[in-house]
């Protein structure tokens, strides 16, 4: 019994010792470089422009406001990305079980190709080759496509936003497709036979019979993909989209406040993480509840 206690004390001492050394080094270095720890600088004017703002912003606004705008931009691209990726992923995942052999092969090729190429490369492809490669003057009626931006149903979407959105959706969609495929496979064969022998069509059967039963297997893995998408949205900096990370990056470069900036970013992503996880947990509960009730 006593040995256990000693091991605990030794382990705690080791960890605390390590922490102490690191914090000491940190303190020494902070003093040496003249940086303290403070958040007052957040009120100072940012001094840089942002290409994309959901709410009014000017360079004379505070860093805090700039970061908020970045947060909003992130939310914009993440939420739309989640929706698009889910639609794409569910379609591709369901296509893997389709009766049409060509469709199955296409869906499989999509997954195999997209997952073996880095997301950053794909983002840059969509930006430089895809959207910037569009003609100067808008084409299409309802959807105005040009390399200045997309006009969709009255909304003006920047090229940067579209590139990030497309890249994220296509990449995450491939992972979601695999998850959906796994979930569909977990539904017993008998269910398929049942709805087919009742004369129900493939599409109807998939939507009303199979997918709902595949949900409990799909949701947990889907949650981690959603969290991945949220994290991957930070790559937007590579194509010039002003998301939270990009704004933080500029802020830290200008103010030198690396530690505070890191803490703020950390908090923001923990919050985002919490939001998505709890949302999915609620969804999970609803789905399980409905399934139980219907039995």
């Amino acid at each position, binding site marked *: 019994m006593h040995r256990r206690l000693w091991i605990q004390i030794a382990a705690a001492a080791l960890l605390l010792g390590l922490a102490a050394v690191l914090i000491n080094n940190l303190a020494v270095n902070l003093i040496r470089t003249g940086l303290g720890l403070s958040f007052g600088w957040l009120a100072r004017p940012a001094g840089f422009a942002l290409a994309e703002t959901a709410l009014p912003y000017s360079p004379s606004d505070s860093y805090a406001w700039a970061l908020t705008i970045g947060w909003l931009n992130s939310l914009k691209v993440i939420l739309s990305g989640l929706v698009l990726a889910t639609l794409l992923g569910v379609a591709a995942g369901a296509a893997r079980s389709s009766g049409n052999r060509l469709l199955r092969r296409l869906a499989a090729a999509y997954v195999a190709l997209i997952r073996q190429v880095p997301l950053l490369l794909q983002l840059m492809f969509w930006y430089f080759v895809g959207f910037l490669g569009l003609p100067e003057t808008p084409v299409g009626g309802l959807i105005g496509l040009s390399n200045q931006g997309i006009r969709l149903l009255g909304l003006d979407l920047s090229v940067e936003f579209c590139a990030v959105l497309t890249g994220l959706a296509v990449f995450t969609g491939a992972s979601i497709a695999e998850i959906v495929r796994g979930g569909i496979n977990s539904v017993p064969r008998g269910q398929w036979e049942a709805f087919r022998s009742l004369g129900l069509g493939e599409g109807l059967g998939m939507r009303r019979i199979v997918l709902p039963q595949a949900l409990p297997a799909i949701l947990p893995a889907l949650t981690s993909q959603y969290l991945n998408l949220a994290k991957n949205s930070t790559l937007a900096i590579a194509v010039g989209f002003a998301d939270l990370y990009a704004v933080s990056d500029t802020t830290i470069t200008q103010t030198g406040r*690396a530690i505070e900036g890191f803490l703020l970013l950390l908090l923001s*992503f923990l919050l985002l993480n919490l939001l998505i996880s709890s949302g999915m947990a609620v969804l999970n509960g609803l789905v399980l509840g409905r399934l139980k009730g219907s039995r």
Partner: protein
Amino acid sequence: MNRVIDRLLTLLMLALLGWVGFSGVHWLLFAADWTVVTANLPLYAVGGYPPDQRWRPLVWIALLILMTAITLMGPRRGWLRRGLPALWSLMVPLGVVLLAGGLGLQPVPTREWGGFSLTLLLTVCSALLSLPAGVLLALGRRSELPVLRVASTAYIEVMRAVPLIAVLFFGQLLIPLFLPPGLELNRVLRAVIAFALFAAAYIAEDVRGGLQAIPPTQTEAAAVLGLSPFQSLRLVVLPQALRIALPALTNQAVGLLQNTSLMAILGLVELLGISRSLLANPAFIGRYLEVYVWLAAVYWLACTAMALLARHLEIQLDPLRSS
């Protein structure tokens, strides 16, 4: 599905595929200007490495390709097959020595490393560091000692909530702040540490899944044989847990290879980074599509090779198959 609609859909897809395929092949062979690739092959391979020493990273890459080919084809000679694991583990220190220098080779500073050789080096070094760290974290998370459990859980949860680019960026900025004044780490080393710290958290969760899959009766059986808890962990539990976690772990490795591309944003000239600077060169301006197609092919080949090696490893470690 309705026969007619099905037929129409297939026809439509075939037509689309045909058009895409045809224009794709046409572009590849005739319309594309491949000089941006062909004229710069050494750069893609080894970045800004001193030209007279280029043979060193090139030899390393060639050896890796050779090892992959040999492993996947399954050597006949017994001695070769048994020596493979040892040869593979030699590849990492060999790579470091070849690139860095020392031991009779002219030292080359890390800021001159680049291209695919840097991509590979980042991948293997980070993978090597993160595996033991991840195992320790997983064990820590399952520990009965509250200090270890809380610390491990906190680390894992925080690392998994934060985007990789942030960890890499802050790694570059903050790692020096935690070191004693006077000790300086070059950017490549800071990147490796940052990658390892990040990957360790994900590996920890995969290993934890493997540990959870092992029934407590295994620990019991080991205990009644008189094995100490440490022995039981090392000889019975961990070998099984790692085998179970192997697919997830190899997925992480492939992800690591892809994620090295993020260093391009932070100024390292690995494969993606060197391509970006090439595209900024007035001689190659606008050649985005050629470069990206080329890069996609290289990454795709590398990732697929890794995936194949992973399947091979899984089969080798399955006691039933290999006996």
